[in-house]
């Protein structure tokens, strides 16, 4: 599973909701959880977000898959909060963290990158008057998401090459070829963007 939740097509109410609305709800939820705090608002918000997954047609497996990515962070945070401030704070903080990660995941799962970049372009539009390259910033977002699986694949190739040559795990022997391959990929991607009219 990628660290960025991948869009899954669908026709649910959540899928059809405007991307701007989904991002606004996500931002509002984050602010509300920080301002309101407490254990029960976190649990109510968590239940609402899990309900959103059900509404979008995703099952428990998808929800758990999203949570699994921050399992260790959540556990460490929960233990620290339990020891330092008690169970209410632990539930409140960990609940808010899990809720927000799940909510962000739900937005990614139900919104295409084109829709997200359109919202980003709209938000950045005022900066265009100041000369900010807003289309490039939006493209940067798309390329970042697109590059995650590519770099993961390059890393797997480097690991396989190390194993094939009987090399033990060495950060340097892993990082240097990965960096070289990533730079080569970046160069090729730049050429492709130019060929597809990026500078036109």
């Amino acid at each position: 599973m990628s660290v960025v939740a991948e869009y899954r097509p669908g026709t649910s109410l959540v899928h059809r909701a405007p991307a701007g609305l989904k991002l606004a709800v996500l931002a509002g939820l984050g602010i509300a959880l920080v301002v309101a705090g407490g254990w029960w608002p976190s649990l109510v918000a968590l239940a609402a977000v899990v309900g959103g997954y059900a509404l979008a047609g995703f099952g428990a497996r998808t929800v758990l898959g999203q949570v699994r990515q921050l399992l260790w962070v959540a556990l460490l945070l929960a233990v620290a909060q339990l020891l330092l401030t008690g169970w209410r704070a632990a539930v409140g903080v960990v609940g808010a963290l899990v809720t927000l990660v799940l909510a962000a995941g739900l937005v990614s799962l139900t919104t295409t990158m084109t829709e997200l970049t359109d919202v980003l372009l709209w938000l950045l539009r005022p900066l265009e008057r100041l000369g900010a390259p807003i289309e490039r910033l939006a493209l940067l977002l798309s390329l970042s998401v697109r590059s995650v699986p590519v770099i993961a694949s390059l890393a797997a190739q480097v690991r396989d090459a190390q194993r094939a040559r009987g090399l033990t795990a060495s950060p340097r022997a892993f990082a240097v070829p990965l960096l070289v391959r990533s730079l080569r990929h970046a160069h090729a991607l730049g050429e492709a963007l130019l060929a597809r009219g990026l500078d036109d």
Partner: protein
Amino acid sequence: MPLIEVVEVSHSYPQTTGRRQVLTGVSVTLSEHRIGVIGANGSGKSTFARLLNGLVLPDTGEVRVDGNDTRRRGRAVRRLVGFCFTDPDAQIVMPTVREDLVFGLRRRGLPGGEIAARVDRALADFGLAEHAHHPAHLLSGGQKQLLALASVLITDPALLIMDEPTTLLDLRNAAAVGEVVADLGQQVILLTHHLELLSGFDRVLVFDEGRIVCDDQPEAASTFYRQLMA
């Protein structure tokens, strides 16, 4: 078909000590429908291809596509010339198949309805309809190359340059890409090591050490190339 004129072109790349000459005094005029380019690795054929859409500008000499000098009218040239690279992963820029097809059309400012119609047609033509909303990285190698090709062709270039598009593919996928190329109405310049793909081409150039050393029909050029490599 666009007329491609390459006039006394030389090009070199910087290296640790001095520069490495990759093309020397290349002159050729191309107007045929399907043109093949073959040569050993490092023979200069990839640089030659990149000169034709302005990705690389010549140190000396001139390259004109349909009368547009790549140095002065790069934008016009790139609208005429589509370029398909060896590694599809390096040219698919959007996360999903449909979004990548949409990318080039949106940059050209086409209306939404026309974009949707063109994308639907391309998805059907390239057998990608059932993968439209799938993440591009989950496609097979052949499907990725077909997507890369579709993403270039959807903008309707007059000339398509393909730099070893089948090198990373197995025989079945290479054949699938070959079939697509064979049916194209556009002018095509295909760089390849798979000589069988050049069957039926109008003209084949053989590069060696930065020069065109043979310019002939596919069979004669392939024979020349095999002897050169022997």
